[in-house]
């Protein structure tokens, strides 16, 4: 796992990365990054992770990493 900054993120998005918000769904519904997928940490498991394409980069984010 690699921690990235805004420049890295924008490069990865341009290259087709999947952007995943892991905050609770109400936070996502109010405001999220353009095109982001909602996959709350509390719901993250083998089954829900099947929504993601393993062949592509995955970028996760929350509010500020805490």
């Amino acid at each position, binding site marked *: *796992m*690699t*921690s*990235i*900054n*805004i420049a*890295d*993120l924008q490069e*990865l998005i341009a290259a087709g*990365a999947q*952007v*995943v*918000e*892991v*905050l609770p769904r109400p936070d*996502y*519904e*109010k*405001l*999220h*990054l*353009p*095109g*982001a997928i909602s*996959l709350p*940490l509390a719901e*993250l*498991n*083998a089954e829900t*992770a099947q929504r*993601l394409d*393993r062949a*592509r*980069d*995955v*970028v*996760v*984010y*929350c*509010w*500020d*990493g*805490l």
Partner: protein
Amino acid sequence: MSPRAACRLATLGFTRVYDYTPGKVDWLARGLPGEGTRADEPTAGSLARHDVATCPLDAAPGDVLRAIADSPHGYALVLSPGGVVLGRVRKSALQTLGDGDPIDTVLEPRPQTIRPHLTQRKLEERFEAYGFQTLVVTRPDGTLIGVVRRDEIVTS
């Protein structure tokens, strides 16, 4: 939270996982667009005024007073060379100094700061609850964006 999610994905066999650790706070602080039911709400970042006087810590009191006179606020924000807000100096306090005196003797080191993604509704609550007249809007790294004033935010 995102570091744990990234690790969880790794344990599930994902090998191309990145953690945008600065997160949504960083994205919004940069004025980048969002999506969602509250994406169009005014925020501290969009409401911030950019006309506050600023100065370095080694500025002469007279220079700071002249900068304040050219602004609509009664104070200046003291910034580090990198733009981090170090504190505030009020006009009334500066007027007690001689021009050779260091301004850090009247520096208020902890002005109330807020993040730019705070919505107008939350701003109103903050002003009402704590009685602030001004809040300083900063990025997560502490650098200055601007200031918001109670008389321009609280309508009732």
